[in-house]
């Protein structure tokens, strides 16, 4: 188990380091179009070849990794915090508050979020820079992704409310506020961590899915989603297998995160 975790952490660390040092590692800018060398094979100049607009695939992969690996955890953190507060409070308070939160969670889970994302994207100001646009996309994903984890956290909180130490703490006169912050939430930490690690690959894949619909990160910023769209052209993929690099990296990163999650779940609390 430790070996798996070490390997997963090492791979993720390398990916993050490469993404953060993209400016030094890559020879070209992710936006630079070498229009005379479109769809080129890997070479000393372009390590992973060029895309259909003549942009360096390697540079785009590194910058795309930066976006996915930095913003997906940020969105996961946001959704986990929201889920912890809402689900935790519902489980702790119980009664009609719990029923209300359960109803809201069910409603949230049943709504067609893709259409909401489309509508929200359409309402945003048009002159937002690509960087702001990508941050808003992940912020939206974070704000919308709390409902699933909240349900699990509510169940966890409900179990803890009836535990001996909380009953004892309550009997000793600690305020409900303090009880929630100091005793309940810290003991929900394993569930919160698990939900966080689950959410990271979910958000990476969500951005990739939005990218496939042409609604993810806007040009010229690269993202894994935008790069994965090229795989629609299956005959080009067969002839140029290096086009699979973003898919391979996505699988590796998501697998590493899942390995870490498995380790976290089985770790003693």
């Amino acid at each position, binding site marked *: 188990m430790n070996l798996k975790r070490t390997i997963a952490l090492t791979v993720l660390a390398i990916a993050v380091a490469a993404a953060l040092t993209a400016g030094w590692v890559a020879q070209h800018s992710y936006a630079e179009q070498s*229009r005379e060398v479109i769809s080129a094979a890997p070479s000393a100049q372009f390590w992973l070849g060029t895309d259909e607009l003549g942009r360096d695939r390697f540079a785009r992969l590194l910058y795309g990794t930066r976006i996915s690996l930095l913003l997906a955890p940020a969105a996961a953190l946001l959704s986990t915090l929201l889920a912890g507060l809402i689900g935790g409070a519902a489980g702790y308070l119980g009664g009609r508050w719990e029923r209300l939160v359960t109803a809201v969670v069910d409603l949230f889970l049943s709504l067609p979020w893709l259409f909401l994302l489309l509508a929200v994207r359409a309402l945003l100001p048009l002159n*937002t820079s690509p960087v702001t646009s990508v941050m808003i996309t992940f912020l939206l994903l974070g704000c919308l992704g709390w409902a699933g984890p909240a349900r699990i956290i509510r169940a966890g909180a409900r179990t803890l409310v009836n535990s001996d130490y909380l009953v004892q703490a309550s009997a000793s006169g600690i305020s409900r506020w303090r009880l929630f912050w100091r005793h309940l939430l810290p003991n929900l930490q394993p569930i919160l961590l698990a939900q966080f690690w689950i959410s990271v690959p979910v958000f990476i894949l969500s951005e990739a899915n939005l990218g496939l619909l042409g609604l993810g990160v806007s040009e010229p910023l690269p993202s894994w989603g935008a790069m994965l769209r090229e795989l629609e052209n299956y005959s080009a993929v067969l002839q140029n297998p290096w086009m699979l690099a973003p898919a391979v990296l996505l699988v590796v990163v998501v697998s590493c995160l899942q390995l870490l999650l498995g380790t976290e779940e089985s770790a003693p609390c």
Partner: protein
Amino acid sequence: MLIRSAIVLLLGGALAASAANELRFCLRTDPKTFNPLLVEDESSSAIRYLTAGVLIRLNRYTQELEGELATKWKVSENGRRIDFDLRHGVRFSDGTPFTCEDVAYTMRQLMDPALHSPVGDAFRSAPGEVETKCASPSAATVRFSGPVAALATQFDQVAILSALSPKKESAGLGPFELGEYKPGSYVLLRRNPNYWKRDANAHALPYLDSIRLEIQQNRELELLRFRRGELDLINKLDPDMFDRLYAEMPRAVVDAGPSLDWETVFFNQVQNSPSPEYKRRWLRSSDFRRAISEAIRRDDIVRIVYHGHARPAAGPVSVANHFWLNPAVKAGSGSDSAALELLQHAGFRRLGGMLVDSAGNKVEFSMITNAGNKLHERMLALIQQDLARIGIQLNVVALDFPSLVERISRTFNYESVLMAWTSIDLDPSAQMNIWLSSAANHQWNPSEKAPETAWEAEIDKLMLAQNASQDPDKRKVYFDQVQRIVVEQAPMLFLVNPNALSAVGPNVKNATPAVLDPQTYWNAERLQVGGTLVSQR
């Protein structure tokens, strides 16, 4: 029992799939109507083309008018009157004879305000009745209350209905008749046994027994089924698919050359749009718009986005439109220096790597397009870099189509847009709804109460003049001037005319794809499938 049924079903399916002498291709959507006078969508239009008979047909290949149910015609009274000599011995698919009364009945139906026929709109040039007189069963005269531009050409869209048949619009004079329709699945057209046309050897046409139109929105599946031999034709291939198919079946793909379609950019020139005042000033400046046009490298769009299957566009007439093209109109040069010169003339200047206006505002604007359109996304990425070279920051925004339409036609909350325009008509009168300043489709500033600029007033005058004239040469002079003004003022930038790309299966004979719709089956009555020979009939 279940297994036996499954085998029977499978065998049945296989037999159906291999039905001899049946042409198969795809419609993108279900047809919205089978009434040929109410056709608006592409699928209904395809069915009308295959099942309806018309008096005059525009030959999609030669772009010449040819007599169909009319053997001769004559336009007179400055486009108010047209006389037809009708073909003898023609019968509708249900056996009822075709006479002048059918033409009169069709015209009454077509112009009935209660029917709201989109085809009829083209004939409503002035208030008043349309009168059809029958001097004999084979001589019809149709008189309009006002002059109708390109009157004879308009009859290419008018499907003749039967006045006597109890089946009304279901009785047709085209090569095929409606056999079966399963919503969401297919439309089956069967051979019209009473079709009048014969080939040079006096064999009855059409050669095909049936046409099966599969309803299939997914283009990848359409391509896959074509490769498997389950489909015989594909219309309007995109360049990626064309190249993929070319790699596997080089003889199946056809590049018929530039189509009448355009890829265009237009700028929001609505006076009270929500953009800041300084941006509205830029967008309303013809120097600014022309500078953008000059900076865009159309050759790169053709080479990189369309893989060579397009032609740089100069103006609002495609090179495919042989008669109406003004050859003096030239496409933007793709030259940064030419663009910067125009911008300097309009008061812009470079500040570091940026372009700023006379008040020091950084030049940055957005361009919207419909999400999920790969060609548009690639085009925008190229335009973004082209404009970056002259210091302009272009923000690219992909929107779902309803949001895009809402912005460009109702809220006017946009700055510029990249859109594809489909044109199916060679005649400039079909573009009246774009160029007249009062028109709703005058996209950069729709439905102006009065022309807001002198050049729009001039275009209005020229378009009305060409529409009123029946002399093709005079009309050409007027429309040449419209094209010149449009390129000089650049309210719309014409980027490329995509080529008409199609695929024809190896089993199909006599197919000669054209640039005009319907590209591959414009001569459906002469198409053959497999080894079926004319002599067998």
